[in-house]
């Protein structure tokens, strides 16, 4: 499927993923039900430098940020593909520097259902991360993502 090509002559943020995940995010994987424009919209917004949202405290109040830093773990993030609602996916990864996200594991949200199971998968991801690979650490969302970015848990004004 050919994705639309908005005339955005920028590539402000970088998303690194393995080839099989790349196929999914690029629309080349068939049969997985990735047909929702909003699914591809998040990828586009991230890479193109358009607004994305992120939270450093997970998503306790269901405010649905695009990126969540999982709690009780060391800089483990999920990029949240929340549409379509019945076929949500989570790309688990880490920022290796501002605006540069490495997503190494793609999970169906249904698979991650249940806090205990979700935490177990995240913990396993954390342990699989190579010891010699640095990752980025920040204290506010702007430390990870350049403007425009919003944190639904931090008031704007």
């Amino acid at each position, binding site marked *: *499927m050919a*994705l*639309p*090509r*908005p*005339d*955005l*002559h*920028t*590539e402000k943020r*970088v*998303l*690194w*993923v*393995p*080839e*099989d*995940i*790349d*196929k999914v995010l*690029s629309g*080349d994987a068939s049969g997985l039900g990735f*047909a*929702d*424009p*909003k699914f*591809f*919209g998040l990828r*586009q*917004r991230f*890479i*193109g430098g*358009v*607004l*994305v*949202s992120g939270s450093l405290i997970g998503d306790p109040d269901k405010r649905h940020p695009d990126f969540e830093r999982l709690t009780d773990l060391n800089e483990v993030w999920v990029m949240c593909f929340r549409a379509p609602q019945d076929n949500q996916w989570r790309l688990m990864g880490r920022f*290796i520097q501002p605006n540069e996200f*490495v997503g*190494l*594991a793609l999970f169906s949200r249904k698979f991650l259902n249940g806090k205990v199971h979700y935490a177990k998968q995240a913990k396993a991801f954390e342990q*699989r*991360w*190579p010891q*010699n*690979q640095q990752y980025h650490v920040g204290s506010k969302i702007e430390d990870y993502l350049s*403007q*425009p970015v*919003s944190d*639904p848990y931090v*008031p*704007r*004004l």
Partner: protein
Amino acid sequence: MYQDYKFRREFASEIIEAAFFGAFMVAIDARKNEDSLTQAELAKRTGKEKTGISKLLAGPRNWKLSTISDLAEALDLRLEFVLIDQHQPQRRFTQTGVAFAIPHNTSLNVDNLPLPINSPQQAGNSNRLQNEGCQLLNFSLDESQKSKLPLTISP
């Protein structure tokens, strides 16, 4: 064919809502940092309740043109409209007519501009990463390798 347009419409809508909201958020941040703009002040300027402003700033929505205009005025911003012809990307439809973005007497060469980010080449991103030693769940990339990675897409 119309199915394709349906997808494109919904995709573009997702992007444009975020783009509008994002641009205003950046402007609001600037006004807050440089002019100490507050939510109460913005509410007064737009003629809305504070709760209305809070809702407005909560996340991208399908804003009315009047909302966009009100916010722009309240933030002392001037809006301009440019529609880019996807059949002829150098042709722009503006509020005052048609214009062509043809570089003239400058060093800018449009052929050298980065490709639109949805170009097929982008799908090769991870191929290059894998060629540099990155495997699924076996990630290893040191600084010297990283410096070799093309971070922008070239034709």
